[in-house]
């Protein structure tokens, strides 16, 4: 059996972490989740995820800083920015990310982006 692809979820909202975790586990992925930027950067080296779903507005190290550090460490690892509203789409910095989605209770768009990026 092929090894499961690993997704790292970074979000300070517990409900969202649990939602993404459950959903992507059901979809057959392995999921690790982190509640802040620092934790995410440490876990990134250890877990070596195939894809990162990253919230922007988090206390402490912001999602944008995490994005830049992840892209520096591993430019090829796809990162999906997931945030409450679409205005960050206009932020230059998020253009380094591979995709941008606006958080919604309906996960169809997020799931199809993940599928597109890592299969």
């Amino acid at each position: 059996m092929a090894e499961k692809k690993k997704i790292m979820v970074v979000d300070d909202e517990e409900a969202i972490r649990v939602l993404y975790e459950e959903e992507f586990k059901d979809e057959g992925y392995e999921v690790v989740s982190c509640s802040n930027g620092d934790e995410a950067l440490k876990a990134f080296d250890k877990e070596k995820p195939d894809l990162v779903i990253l919230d922007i507005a988090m206390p402490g190290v912001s999602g944008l800083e995490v994005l830049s550090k992840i892209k520096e460490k591993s430019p090829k690892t796809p990162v999906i920015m997931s945030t409450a509203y679409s205005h960050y789409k206009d932020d230059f910095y998020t253009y380094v990310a591979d995709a941008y989605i606006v958080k919604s209770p309906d996960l169809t768009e997020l799931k199809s982006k993940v599928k597109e990026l890592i299969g």
Partner: protein
Amino acid sequence: MGKRYSLDRFINIVNSQNDLLTLYLRGLPFFLLACNAERLIFFKYRRRKQCFDIKAGITKEDVEVIVKDDFEGFDTKLLFDSKFNRDARSFGSSCNDIIRSFVKLFIDGTVKEVKREDLPFYKLKSMFDGFGFKGSALLVPFKSRGEVVGFMLLHPYCDVESIKPFVDVFGCVLDKLMLVKSVENLERAVSGYKEGCSTQDDKIYQLGKSAMVVAHEMKNALVGILGLFNKLEEYLKDEERAVRYYDIIKSQLERIYNFVIDINRYSRFSEAMDLRRVDISDVIDNAIEMVSAFSKNVDFSVSLDRGELCILADREQLQQVFLNLFKNSIEAGGSKRIKIEVSVKRKGNFLVIRVRDNCGGIKDLDKLEKITEPFFTTKSYGTGLGLSIVKSIIENHKGQISFRNVPGGLECVIKLPMNFVEERDGGKEENHGC
């Protein structure tokens, strides 16, 4: 008119430079940043597919127009990714300061080395870091017909001469892409836009600001709650009572969620406008299509003046105007068969748009006066923001809006200047076409 390039030649130029550029950008997927006075665009080249991904600033239609004109045998399907970013937004208003600072740097149109600390904004510094430039970068202008129409950032060790063919091609492409070419136009648009904002009611503005903060927090919580709630449904299969409670809670949660989204929408509309030439009949058609998808109970009739119905506007916002007006009629009409008549007439430099329904109107004149006030509603549900959003959008476009009772229903009359930037500057008439 620039030189004509064949598809092969263009692809070859890009391919031959791609390694170089990718290396400079340290493997990041970024390829090129282009801007003129009004727009910023990121081009990301996908070598394997031999296509461009355009991340912001222009529409597929814009691209098709330039492609037809400038490149022989250019197949848009081949060159531009089919997953073209459909909601591509211009940076027109939100990043004006950034754009202006770049335009200033390029006033003489020469290649310049810029240091991180020279960059005036945090966002630019972040971009600089994000692209992996350490300390400094080269800003290379794109020119067309002697004017600077864009620029790109390169690693300082880059040999500018070697990428010259590429720079020339892009200068020509950008020139065609940009609707507004001169810095003066931008300055005018920016200062006019800011003046417009300052006339807004401060109280409502502040209310909007605080509502936005509340809405943001609530939305974040609700996404998780509603998402998990949707999953819960799978586990409720046979419990009749549980299913009933589930449905009620879900509908109430959705109500809060929609409320929060509306508040956010209302508080954001005054901030950024993506101005471009918009055909009003397209906007109306789209809105009708969207509304018809969820409400089968409505008959629309549209009557349009012949000829030019294009205006300078934010398409998404204008669409929201029609969506909210239609939604308002549908909610007021209840279960009866609803008729909505839309008419658009041109009067001089203005469009007069009428949206009329058969849903009874508002007999109480005090209430009629208040219907565009935030949080005012005559319904037992709803946010009371729908028509406030409509009003603030129309006012952002320097238009006027009024509501009046007509036999059997309500009529909304909107008067929009076809080019509000020029209206403000003395009413110069210029026909750009869409």
